[in-house]
């Protein structure tokens, strides 16, 4: 970590999509009108291709280096060098950011490709791709930025793009509201993020070592020992604040409310931003700062608790949703909760691994649902679907595979990642069986609502009206705010009004590739218990201060060792220690393998249980869903269906409170502050009115006398002006005569 290898191509990973966005943003409308959509497509897709190629190049270069030296740095220019703050516009590539870059450019590229088909009839085609490219650039900045501040640029940048894309069809009020809600909620998180950053900087600065650059933080973070901020240990305060940021971006309790609404955006956007990349930023950030979080076990407990709660509650809400995308949205929230559980128990690589696999299968699910929505002309209510299996075989199979992956059915990707999390939650010193139990229960819920979705959408009879799929809008207008105006012209032609049809190849190819990922990526990190080698964990090991399998460590062990060492030797020594520990833990794993098998079996069984329940209810229909929804006179069902009234609660407290305060202050400003000013003015006016009376009576009297005298005199003198030229001439001549005689006599 101490000697970065300097390169100069990393900047182009970010700049290429940014340039694409700039060209499409400035000239896109013109291109689309004059040259055609393919020009816009080329401008949008080419940069992503370049970025992906460079990401692969970076990955290969990292592979060619010794693991502990895997660190590329591209410093573009100085950015803020003020006082003790030294931040550059710099991008770095280490195993973690390399992995993220590959996901963003790879999956992002596929989603770009898919969008070409999905958005083909959109009038603002160029605008869509401008936002999408801009988003990619921002997300890559977030990942590649080498300091908290550069990360924050991307952090807010993705928020902006998310805002723009959620409200993409801005003629619909609901979409615009959803965009604003997302941005403002994220800002609450950002508020925490910046406070955390400030606290960290100044706490380090007190020892003369202030910095926000990651690679320096990793070495100096031990200086926080013994410092306090606001009564908390410095590390705890900082990490808690950072975690507030993470809850905003990654939609955790209490700031998760924006994500379900964010489904108002175009579906590929939901896949890219609200499933695969942006929402995982919080997880990425915690993993990036793992050395800091390791110092704050309190925060880790909070993270784990929040993650567990979020996972569970989101899953229960997902059970009752009818909108095909909202189910997936709550599923995303729930899965993000899983990732935070992993973070909270110190299993950073495991969480990131789940992030990685989740990106594939959740993107595939969203794109699949997009394909369905596209085929049904923007019908999103699952009650109006059904039987689509025979109409859309590719979509069905990819959707099914991804669902299986999400449910954690072996051997699909989700099994490896999710079970690993559950196992860590159970076995880690920071974990507990309670976490495991709730997680497993959640996994059951997940399996249930996902298969409920599969059965509702793809099995049974088609329940939509074959003549016009778009007519269900009135029943559930707010669930999908797609601009009908923008799309009516696109769907007006008769050919589309037959049965649902499979989507074009541009959309199905990404689906197939992502489904392959959903099936295969799990094998990258097969746990030791199943005879694997944790390839993924090994890859990330240099990033994690604590050894990847360090269940046996105390929370404070390794990072302090790295930090106090201050040098290459110490680092090498540390690496050696880590390897030692790895060997130990492999043995440890073998001992625990029995437990691990047992827990695996339980969770898989629970998942199958969920599937079975769904099958009974929605396929075989031998079990009436209403027996559940009517239980306890429907109370729990209503709570779940209405998302526990969280939105209403926030509206009633935070939003209305702020608005009321705002109105109060504005009135105060107008009435009191301005009133004092105007009152002072009034007093002065009254005084001057008194003075004025005196003025008018006495002073003015004299003045007026002079005036009226002049006026009277003037009136007389006026007669002298006859207007006749000869009278003036007479006057002149008389004057001349008088002067002459005066002179002569």
């Amino acid at each position: 970590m101490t000697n970065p290898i300097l390169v100069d191509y990393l900047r182009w990973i970010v700049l290429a999509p940014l340039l694409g966005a700039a060209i499409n943003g400035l000239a896109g409308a013109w291109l689309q009108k004059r040259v055609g959509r393919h020009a816009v497509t080329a401008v949008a897709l080419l940069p992503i291709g370049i970025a992906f190629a460079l990401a692969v190049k970076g990955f290969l270069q990292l592979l060619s280096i010794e693991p502990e030296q895997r660190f590329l740095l591209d410093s573009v220019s100085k950015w803020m060098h003020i006082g003790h703050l030294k931040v550059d516009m710099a991008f770095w590539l280490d195993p973690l950011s390399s992995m993220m870059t590959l996901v963003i450019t790879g999956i992002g590229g596929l989603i770009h490709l898919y969008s070409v088909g999905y958005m083909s009839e959109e009038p603002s085609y160029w605008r869509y791709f401008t936002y999408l490219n801009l988003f990619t650039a921002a997300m890559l900045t977030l990942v590649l930025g080498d300091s908290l501040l550069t990360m924050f640029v991307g952090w807010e940048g993705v928020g902006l793009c998310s805002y723009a894309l959620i409200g993409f069809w801005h003629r619909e009020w609901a979409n615009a509201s959803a965009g604003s809600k997302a941005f403002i909620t994220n800002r609450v998180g950002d508020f925490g993020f910046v406070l955390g950053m400030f606290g960290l900087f100044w706490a380090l600065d007190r020892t003369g070592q202030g910095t926000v650059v990651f690679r320096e933080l990793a070495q100096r973070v031990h200086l926080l020992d013994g410092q306090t901020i606001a009564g908390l240990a410095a590390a705890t305060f900082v990490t808690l604040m950072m975690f507030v940021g993470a809850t905003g971006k990654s939609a955790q309790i209490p700031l998760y409310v924006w994500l379900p609404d964010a489904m108002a955006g175009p579906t590929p956007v939901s896949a890219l931003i609200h499933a695969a990349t942006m929402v995982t930023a919080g997880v990425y950030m915690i993993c990036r700062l793992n050395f800091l979080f390791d110092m704050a076990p309190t925060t880790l407990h909070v993270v784990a608790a929040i993650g567990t709660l979020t996972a569970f509650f989101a899953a229960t809400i997902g059970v009752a949703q009818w909108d095909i995308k909202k189910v997936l949205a709550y599923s995303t929230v729930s899965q993000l909760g899983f990732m935070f559980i992993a973070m909270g128990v110190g299993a950073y690589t495991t969480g990131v691994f789940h992030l990685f696999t989740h990106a594939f299968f959740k993107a595939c699910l969203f794109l699949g649902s997009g394909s369905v929505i596209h085929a049904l002309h923007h019908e999103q209510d699952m009650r109006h679907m059904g039987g689509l299996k025979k109409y859309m075989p590719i979509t069905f199979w990819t959707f099914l595979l991804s669902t299986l992956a999400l449910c954690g059915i072996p051997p699909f990707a989700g099994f490896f990642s999710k079970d690993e999390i559950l196992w860590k939650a159970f076995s880690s010193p920071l974990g507990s069986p309670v976490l495991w139990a709730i997680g497993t229960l959640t996994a059951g819920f997940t399996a249930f609502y996902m298969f409920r979705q599969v059965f509702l959408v793809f099995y049974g009879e088609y329940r939509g009206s074959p003549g016009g799929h778009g007519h269900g809008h009135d029943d559930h207008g707010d669930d999908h705010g797609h601009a009908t105006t923008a799309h009516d012209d696109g769907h007006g032609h008769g050919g589309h009004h037959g049965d649902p049809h499979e989507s074009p190849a541009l959309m199905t190819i990404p689906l197939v590739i992502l489904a392959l990922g959903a099936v295969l990526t799990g094998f990258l990190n097969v746990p030791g218990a199943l005879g694997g080698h944790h390839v993924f964990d090994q890859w990330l090991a240099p990033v994690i201060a604590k050894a990847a399998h360090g269940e046996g460590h105390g929370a404070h062990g390794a990072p302090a060792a790295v930090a106090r060492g201050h040098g290459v030797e110490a680092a090498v020594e540390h690496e050696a220690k880590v390897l030692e520990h790895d060997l130990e833990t492999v043995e440890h794993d073998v001992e625990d393998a029995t437990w691990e098998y047992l827990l695996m079996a339980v969770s898989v069984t629970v998942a199958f249980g969920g599937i079975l329940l769904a099958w009974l209810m929605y396929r075989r229909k031998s079990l009436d869903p209403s027996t559940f929804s009517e239980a306890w006179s429907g109370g729990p069902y209503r709570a779940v269906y209405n998302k526990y009234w969280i939105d209403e609660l926030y509206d009633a407290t935070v939003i209305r409170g702020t608005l009321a305060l705002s109105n109060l202050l504005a009135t105060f400003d107008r009435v009191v502050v301005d009133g004092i000013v105007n009152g002072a003015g009034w007093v002065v006016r009254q005084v001057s009115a008194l003075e004025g009376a005196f003025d008018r009576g006495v002073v003015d009297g004299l003045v007026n006398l002079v005036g009226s005298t002049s006026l009277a005199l003037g009136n007389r003198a006026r007669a002298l002006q006859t207007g006749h030229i000869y009278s003036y001439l007479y006057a002149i001549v008389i004057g001349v005569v008088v002067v002459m005689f005066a002179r002569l006599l």
Partner: protein
Amino acid sequence: MPTNPLTWMIFLPLLGAAVILCLPRDNHSLVKWTALAFTIPALLLAIAIYQGFDRTTAQMQYVTKIPWIPSFNIEYFVGIDGLSVTMVLLTALIAPICVLASWEIDKAPKAYFALFLVLIAAMMGVFCALDFFLFFVFWEVMLLPMYFLIGIWGGPRREYAAIKFFLYTMVGSVLMLIAMLALYFHNDPHTFDLLKLAEARSTYSSTFQSLAWLALFVGFAIKIPAFPFHTWLPDAHVEAPTAISVILAGVLLKMGTYGILRVNFPILPEGTLRYAFWLLAALGTWNIVYGALCAMAQKDLKKLIAYSSISHMGYVMFGMASLTAEGIDGAVLQMFNHGTVTAMLFLLVGVIYDRAHHRNIDGFGGLASIMPVYTAWVALAFFAAMGLPGLSAFISEVLVLLGGWRNYPGLTAVAASAVVLTAGYMLWAMQRVYLGKPNEKYLSLPDINRREIATLVPLGIIVIVLGVYPHAILDLIDTSLQHLNGTVLAAGKAAGAVASAASGVAAH
């Protein structure tokens, strides 16, 4: 011929005003082009100054010192350092933009542009003057054209707004005058030279520092405007024509914070330290939050932006109160950034007001579908005002808050909460005006035209460039501000040393 570019920059607009007065009354376009022609050279000179400015010294540069009224030791003394150079640049930049923005003025354009040029000259003078008397003269000269510009070319309640503005500022001027005279007579030989006044900082007694500081502060706070002296601003903005709002928010407000940094900080460092917490940091924080909350409740788009100005100027106060390198640099950068961003905002409001003849936030709707290019500019300006990273205001706000945390972590937390509030009122306004279904009434509104875009492009470019490379300005200001900050802190240490010595003596 004077060789100092500053002298040219101050007096060229005055000359321009004289020339305009000689032009025929009916030839509007000649008047406008003349006004533009007299603002462009200042901009070119400003660019030359930007190139030639020595970034490594805290000394005054481009100095000219000529006796003016020798019997009172008053001099024509101008010069700039890192603090004033940004303000000079900003003024020179905003002036031609405002001329362009005033292109559609029909009512007596001759008088309008003549007054406008006088205003520009006075503001330039304020930022260049190093003689307190000269500073005061320009400060007062600036009032008169402003009064007429609001009072004649303003909206329906223009007289009220103009008089309010005038009276407020006069009250401030009186206090400033008293403090100025006190400083003048305190020194022997009597002098108005700001640099000499600063050198004598250690001779001012503690009480004297407090009183003078407070008097000056009130004078400047009215201009910022700081709570509770801010109520002239919304009225003035609402009534003023677009270009005057731009110059008001873009340049004029900066005179308050500039004055504090130019006069209070170096001359009265002890007073600065004494009041930094309550009157700068706490009041600044209150300004930030109060302005943001008030903005949220406004119905008039221009009033909303006026309150947002109050909020953003709070950052400047907060930053300078931090007495850290980051905070004070951030404060001055924020002055510059607020100048450009708010100028854009007011220009954009002017665009819509010219077309729809009202500014009621709830009276529009869906303008994004009707005027897409315009809405794109609005989005840029709004997000810049929200402090979106990659745009200029982000840098300054982060620096201010980062600097503030060191000494006032609690206040910083409160101030930082404004990032949420700002996003709240900006996005909410944006949503109501630009998003949603297009309003039937305004379907035929024309999109923004080339002249209007021409006024926005330079500002837009600056906003983006400074977001990516803030050192374009930070390098200019850093040396001078660190020197200034060091001066204040050193005075604090000296005072502290004296105090501890005194207490030591007392203990014996």
